């Protein structure tokens, strides 16, 4: 990692440099899957619950991201 990547928050990945929030996507997927599976016993309801949780998580993180982006634009 060079100093530019360190300052801009970019991380070298297999396919090039990507922003750090890319690493949130698999984490949110895993969280929603495990959370859904602890609430249901059959695959159908687990899948539905997981998708609902994933959408909720993405929206929540997206709103937070927007707020921070707007704040940084103001400053």
């Amino acid at each position, binding site marked *: 990692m060079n100093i530019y990547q360190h300052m801009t928050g970019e*991380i070298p990945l297999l396919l090039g440099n990507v922003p750090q929030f890319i690493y949130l996507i698999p*984490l949110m997927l895993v969280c929603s899957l*495990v959370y859904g599976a*602890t609430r249901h*016993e059959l695959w159908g309801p687990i899948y539905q619950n997981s998708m609902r949780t994933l959408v909720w998580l993405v929206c929540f993180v997206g709103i937070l991201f927007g707020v921070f982006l707007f704040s940084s634009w103001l400053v």
Partner: protein
Amino acid sequence: MSHSSPSSSPEDSICIDLRNPYLAALLAWLCPGAGHLYQRRYGKGVLFMVCILSTYLFGFTIGGGHVVYASWIKNDRRWQYACQIGVGLPALPAIIQNKLERNPEKEPLANGIMAPPSRIDAKKMDELSLWHAQYGAMFEIGTLYTMVAGLLNIVVIFDAYGGPVILNYQVSGSRGPPGKSDE
């Protein structure tokens, strides 16, 4: 111990045998998914094992094997380990490594994997600073991944002990979970 429900959800007809819930919870803590495999809930067991272990191992790998360590000394209170220990066996070697690192007569095992950083000094470039400089954001992301894996496994332990949280279903075992008794 069983519980019946008047609703018509397809999950109402499921009978879950929790076997020994205490043993299942212990197994679930030691190895994510093992408690469910013991209860013959193979699908969920494999799902938990793959999700949690892969999350933990990914975080552990991108952090160079240094993001999981146990330490509670001045300038290095590793509170994150309280979350990481939720994964069970994969995080337990950190305790042994901590004992070895703090003993001046012994060396940490396996090239210091999971060993706490040596020579912690806030005013100097110590080993923890070197790890941060070497791995950059990966160190923080690896720590986050391993912490989330540990916290997720705590939810899984509860599922192994008491079954799914919000459903009406039938439970049997040597001891039923709280709140699932006959009404």
